[in-house]
């Protein structure tokens, strides 16, 4: 738990990718992931090209490949299940390195690992080049309901504060001898979570009163972003268009 958890993914630079309008980045990112998911899993070469595309995009955004790799390992626990598939799966069995494993299980595992990593990669690049408030501004531009983006804005703005609240309580508990090694001590954490919830709610009430005092009538101001230029649109569409072409090719050439 770090104080700057929400911004852990952001890389403070000023590349062309950073300057790209957030709504364009969001659409390109979602489109790319859908194209990758639609690619035939047996088309190893095409998936490799997709991976190279993600790598090139990361470099274009001023991110090093090491940065990308480190961020990708964070996704590892989520695809852990995939590594069990070759051992649990049924169907024809093949021998790999002295172990008998299931062939369909191996393909299923490959499918998850490859596509999850590619999807994660492109989201990591987007998250690293787009500050979280801009992500919300992008969603707003894409006609997301204002209520949802405004609420999500509050979530992001106060998240660090609340994580800090939790951390302060933990430090206070640790300094009074709390060790937290067995399940029973989770109740101590639970009651501190209850305290944090009350603080959160009271903070929300105070924030709302302060907002009303400053003329809030139910709408948050939307940060102004210039409309994307034609050139920006062309650049952003390049990546997903290529991936879509690869996906289509993977089904045509078997």
């Amino acid at each position, binding site marked *: 738990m770090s104080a700057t*958890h929400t911004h*852990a*993914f952001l890389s403070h630079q000023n590349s062309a990718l950073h300057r790209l309008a957030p709504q364009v980045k969001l659409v390109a990112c979602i489109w790319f*992931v*859908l194209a*990758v*998911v*639609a690619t035939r899993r047996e088309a190893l070469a095409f998936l490799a090209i997709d991976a190279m595309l993600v790598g090139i995009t990361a470099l274009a955004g001023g991110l090093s490949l090491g940065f990308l790799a480190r961020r990708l390992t964070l*996704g590892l626990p989520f695809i852990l299940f*995939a590594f*069990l*598939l070759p051992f*649990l799966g049924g*169907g024809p069995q093949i021998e790999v390195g002295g172990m008998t494993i*299931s062939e369909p*299980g191996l*393909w299923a*595992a490959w*499918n*998850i690992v490859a*596509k*999850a990593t*590619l*999807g994660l990669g492109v*989201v*990591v690049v987007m*998250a690293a080049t787009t500050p*979280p408030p801009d*992500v919300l501004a992008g969603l707003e531009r894409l006609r997301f*309901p204002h209520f949802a983006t405004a*609420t*999500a*804005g509050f*979530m*992001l703005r106060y*998240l660090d504060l*609340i*994580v800090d*609240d939790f951390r302060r309580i933990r430090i206070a508990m640790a300094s009074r001898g709390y060790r*937290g*090694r*067995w*399940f029973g*001590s*989770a109740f101590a954490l*639970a*009651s501190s*979570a*209850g305290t944090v*919830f*009350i603080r*959160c*709610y009271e903070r*929300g*009430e105070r924030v*709302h009163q302060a*907002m*009303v005092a400053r003329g809030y009538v*139910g709408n*948050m101001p939307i940060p102004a972003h210039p409309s994307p230029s034609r050139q920006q649109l062309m650049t952003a569409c390049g990546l997903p268009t290529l991936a879509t072409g690869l996906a289509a090719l993977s089904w045509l050439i078997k």
Partner: protein
Amino acid sequence: MHIPDGFINGITSLGAGAGALGALNACLRRLPRIDPLVPLTGLAGAFIFAFQMLNFPVAAGTSGHLVGAALAAILLGPARAVVTLSLVTLLQALVLADGGISALGLNVLNLGVVAPLAGGATYQVVVYSFPRRRASVASAAVVAGLVSVLAAAMALVAEYALGGNHAVPVRTVLTAMVGAHVVVGLAEGLITSAVVATVLRVRPDLVRGARGLAPVTQTGGRPTWGITVAGVLGAAVLLALLLPRSSADPDAFTSVATDQGLVTTAPAADSPVAERNASRKASTSSTIVAGVLGTMLVFGAGTGLFTALRRVGNR
């Protein structure tokens, strides 16, 4: 656990996304259009977000993390909980890269819609079947936490059954998921209950699910027949839908018992229930009859037990 890209096929993901959007829309419509809603829901969402980062110790060195769906449903009410958790899941996908973008609909459906609704509904049913006082809240919260986690896991299994690459049989996934999530869910339930109890002690007005409950020990109110009947009917419908699919082969327990020679006596051949064990190809109708009878039996036993407990408690 957030679903990554490539785990469930596109059509199922799209369907889940549409379902999630529909449910989200329905919940948004139920929210009052007054303005404290935005900052308060935002702060509550930030709390749930932070709460999910909170690891708690399970046993020697290992830790689990919480979902907070039942907690949100009890503290904020089901509609607001759905909106809050869906937004948290969306932000986690876009800002923290948790879960796949193509699986966003699935994740929002499981964690943002199914979990809080199941937790909230369970909480309501349990809290109203107990005497209507605050002491009932803690026990209802335990059950709600357990059910919310199990429901999310079940939703995932259902999605896997519909659109997963069936390298691993659905039955294996089901067994593994239920097994793991009963433990996780119990932990979630206990923590949920402890958090709710703390808030109830300090600011009882903030616990939406405890409104209208008497603060001091009193004799309970009238039983709510509507909810009871709806619950039993719901269970029967679920059984009718799920049992024919699930009973194609004997369940894990039965097969283990048979393998180990624990079950040797066949049930009386003339009862409609018999077919479930006697034949692997049980007919659908007798399976449903067996399921409904089982539900009634469990319902009757449970009601009897709780009535007896209440009598003892009131004495």
